[in-house]
């Protein structure tokens, strides 16, 4: 990391920070003790949605503060809370039909295909495409396309049609996982075995073993890990 300093503008005020820090660390370097806008610090939780503009540029950009390097001349503001409403549903009472999601989130039909959401997404997700897939009733495609969504809400904040893309996508994935994925047979078999009381004795027997015998059993156990 360089010794050079750059200027960032935090909600309009200039601060000098070392080059090479993430936006999040730049805020901290400038003296902010973060409460909002900081969760995992590693690109998994979506707490650190940020809007910025660059000097001499009129566009508003979006990013995750913990996953983006601060650049000279950035005007930064945190967007840690998006008050988007989520519909409530009982997954057991609905089915994965072509109109299921539309009946729960009817506003999806209003998508004007402007692609603003896709441009806003810091995870590079084809947000518009998954919304279009929902419109067509293709739940599996919407589930797959949206999989990397960390629910930061930036797409929703920018959508002219008031669509809550990330809540819509959550429903698509749960419908896919619950109804469209083929269930695991070995798992059902294992669960019936457990219900019959299998494995209890084997484990209890190990618990009773003398420490040295248990160690021996462990170090001599067969290792079969090749895929």
């Amino acid at each position, binding site marked *: 990391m360089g010794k050079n300093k750059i200027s960032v503008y935090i909600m309009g005020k200039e601060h000098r920070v070392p080059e090479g820090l993430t936006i999040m660390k730049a805020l901290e370097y400038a003296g902010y003790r973060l409460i909002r806008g900081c969760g995992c610090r590693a*690109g998994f939780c979506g707490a650190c949605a940020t809007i910025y503009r660059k000097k001499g540029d009129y566009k508003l950009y979006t990013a995750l503060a913990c996953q983006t390097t601060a650049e000279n001349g950035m005007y930064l503001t945190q967007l840690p809370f998006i008050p988007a409403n989520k519909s409530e549903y009982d997954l057991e009472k609905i089915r994965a039909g072509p109109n299921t999601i539309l009946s729960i989130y009817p506003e999806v039909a209003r998508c004007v295909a402007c692609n603003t959401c896709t441009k806003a997404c810091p995870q590079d997700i084809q947000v518009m495409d998954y919304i279009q897939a929902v419109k067509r009733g293709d739940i599996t495609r919407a589930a797959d396309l949206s999989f990397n969504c960390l629910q930061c809400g930036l797409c929703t904040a920018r959508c002219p049609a008031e669509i809550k893309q990330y809540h819509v996508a959550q429903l698509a994935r749960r419908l896919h996982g619950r109804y469209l994925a083929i269930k*695991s047979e070995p798992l059902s078999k294992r669960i019936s075995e457990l219900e019959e009381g299998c494995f209890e004795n084997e*484990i209890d027997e190990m618990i009773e073993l003398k420490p040295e015998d248990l160690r021996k059993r462990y170090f001599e156990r067969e290792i079969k890990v090749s895929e």
Partner: protein
Amino acid sequence: MDMKFIDGYPEYMRQSIKKVEATREKRISLDMEPMSAEEREEVLSTYHPDYVKGGKRSLKVGASKGEMVHHETANILEARPQVNPDEIDLGCINRDVDILIIGGGGAGTVAALHAVYEGILPEDILITTKLRHGDANSMMAQGGIQAADGLDDDPSIHFLDAIGGGHFANKPDLVKALVMDAPRIIDWHQRLGVMYEREDDGHFVERPGGGTSRPRLHSAKDYTGMEIMRVIRDEARNLGLEVEEFSPAVELLTDGDTVTGAILMDLETREYSIIRAKSVILTTGGFGRLHIQGYPTTNHYGATADGLVLAYHVGARITDMDSAQYHPTGAAYPEPILGQLITEKVRGMGAMPVNIDGEAFVYPLEPRDVESASFIRECKTRGKGIETPTGMLGVWLDSPMIEEIHGPGTIKKELIAMWRMEHQFGIDMSQDPILVYPTLHYQNGGVEIDVDGWTGVPGLYAGGEVAGGVHGKNRLMGNSLLDYNVFGRRSGISAARHAKKASPGKITFDHVIRFNSLLDEAGIDTERRSPMLLPDYRGERAIARALNISI
């Protein structure tokens, strides 16, 4: 100091990468053996940070007086409680609930859902959490979750792996609960709609992890934790469970002996609120942000071991807090991602640790402590580490091997979170190896619990990373997502059963007064206050310091 960079790496590091490339083909067919028991012991005792002399001290107060813990842990346990009993009026109760759940990560959410299944109304449950619901280690897990449901596997084999991996210090009945409940947990997730990776016939894709003798890890790309957490959070929202965000618990309340509620503090307004509850569940997660021995950490911002402190104040015992888990593969370069996790799945899929000369030096899937210790040996003693421009050391993790073994494009498909993280900072891990070094990852021990998640203090339950005993001195990968589900569920059920019988208790600060006098008696004169709530990274502290670990 102008350095020339080529695809993210300075030129001088490229010379070592050339050597890694030169040996790659040979290494792919290399059959390495795990260490023997003696070799493991030797490398651990000489190189693992937990064995470094002077890193720990024995506790002078409380129910686990005499236990060895790291100084950083002792500092928060031997500190004055945050709240001053004289300044708070307990006469005005802000809220009365059946169950108060402290910590809105995985364990807390699972506990709440199971308390509802057990018959408690959602409106009689309150989850309170420090940041947002789901801003938690649970969201960050990448690799996967263990469950012995495979054809060539069963819970007794899982039991043996877990107990051996934990150096036989685990509480056997807790391990039994862990492995026996595992298949049912996966089935519950299946019904909630978690998208685990599957083969075409619906079988789960199962992978090996460090210390497992069978492939047993279920995963959802390398966003496994995020996928589970966002599903259970969605379910909690559907059931109308209320979550009070940015409101950490700063102290429990008791009637003297029984836990009867907690005091929350609004992080922004600094206002207190008083919650009375018939049962309280601690699900506050781990201690990574204490930066034990100065290590960087993989943990989320709020991982400051608050629950451990709260439980200790009311007289709960702690166990195995002398051992911390350092994940062998934390990012060592570039600086913005220092300490962040490179999931074990990367090694599970074939990437090998390699030194500066391109040589393999350790079996890639040793248990984490052994693997970490051998990385430290390679760097600190054998001098075969690679130094970064900011003076950090690391070894290569030869990620392009994954593409060689499983075909081009595999990394972007199955390790997309990793690929994105490296790519954001200029490195393409499908083409080049990545630099790694151990990072503080997991609190192996914690508050002592029984198989029902009961802490031994009436009214107080715990589950997940805050609790101890399940993993002994070392947790295996994939066993803690499982842990938070198994013991989140068990503590939720137990708390619900207790709440049905209990009536609202008296709320007092008697235990705080008692704890303060214990500190006085032990002659601990300190300005320290705990729980810590959040670390402070302002100013220069925003920048990671080079580690100076002596062996």
